[in-house]
Structures are given as structure tokens and as C-alpha cells.
């Protein structure tokens, strides 16, 4: 399975939010912990709806959580 072009900063953002656990984030956005694991590993590109829910959970705009292709901020 090739790496997805949609990347994210979820792991870093969780850490910055009082070390939020994967389960806590999963509960907040209404998915299972497995999905958060897959997202952080870059094994899954979320639906637009889930991407927005995750961005809202961190109280950030979408583009600060997700990026397309190479991450220019990293």
C-alpha cells in the first residue's frame, strides 16, 4: 500500500493539547482508535467530513492539521 499524499500533524497536535490520547481524540471526532492510528501512520486519508471534525477538535483551520503532498512547514 503506497503512502498517501494527504499528510497530517495529528500526533504533534495531540501532544500540544495536554498529551491528548488517541482514544480521547477518537471519542471527540466519533471514530475508533484504530482510525486515529491509521491516520497518524499515514495509512489512511480521511473523508472531508472527518478531516473537518479533527480540525475542529483541535480548534484549528483544516490546512494547519492536514497538508497535501510534501509538508512545507515541517
Amino acid at each position, binding site marked *: *500500500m503506497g503512502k*498517501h499524499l494527504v499528510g497530517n500533524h495529528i500526533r504533534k497536535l495531540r501532544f500540544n493539547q495536554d498529551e491528548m490520547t488517541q482514544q480521547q481524540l477518537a471519542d471527540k471526532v*466519533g471514530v*475508533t*482508535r*484504530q*482510525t486515529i492510528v491509521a491516520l497518524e501512520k499515514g*495509512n*489512511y486519508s480521511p473523508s472531508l467530513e472527518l478531516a473537518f471534525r479533527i480540525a475542529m477538535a483541535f480548534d484549528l483551520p483544516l490546512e494547519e492539521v492536514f497538508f497535501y503532498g510534501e509538508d512545507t512547514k515541517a
Partner: protein
Amino acid sequence: MTYQEKKSIVSLFSAVLIFASYCLYMVPRYPEEGLASADTFRYWGTFVLMLALFSVIAHIVISIIFNIVYRVTTREKEPNFADELDKLIDLKAFRNSFFAFILGFLLAMGSLVVEQPLAVMFIILIGAGFVSEVTGALTRLYHYRKGV
């Protein structure tokens, strides 16, 4: 390893265990009469219907036992809903499983064309059912580990 990965492995092993134990029970009961007697047809009909029933019950029992063991060993509650990733993986598993069964079905029909005994057709058909179940479980395991 997450709940879904463990569950895929358990369903893979339970599929093999259920099919093997059922075959071990049923194969010695194959009627000794003619190749296409009424008893032989009744035997194959019973084989398929009872396998479906036995398989459903055994899967439910194994799933309940697995959930209890999972809760006790990890002290986590299993997810009680399927999210978008689960649904996507289920769709892919169903597609591959369906493809495997259709392939087996065509092979079974092919065996009739080349004048093989009816038993061969039934064996291929039942084998295709088993292979399709294993294919579905393997697909789930693969996508939960490697991504979609």
C-alpha cells in the same frame, strides 16, 4: 495491536477451525450408495445447510468469547460501532470474498462441463465458500495493518 486487527486474526482462525471440525464430522457420514442417489443429494444439501447454521452459531460464540477475553486482558471496551475506515475495509473484504466465491462457482460449473462427478462440483462449491471466508478475513487483516 488494535482490537480490529486481533478480531481479524480470530475470525481467520475460527473460519479454519469451524470448517475443519465440521468436515471431520461430516466426511465419514458420506453415503456409500450410488454416486447420484437421492441419499447423496440429501447428504450434500444437509452438508451445506448445516455448515451455514453451524458456522453462524460458532462465529457468534467465538466472537462473544473473544470480546470477554479482550475486555479482561486489555481492560478496554471493544468499539461498538463501525466508522468510515471500518466500512471501507468491510467493502474491500466483501469484494475480494465475493470474487473468490464467484471464481469457485465458475470452477464448480466447469467441473460439470468436463463431466466430473457431482461430488466434485459440491466439493469445489463448498471449498469456494471456505476460501471466500478466509479471503475476507485476510483482506481485513491486511488493510487494518497496512492501510487503505
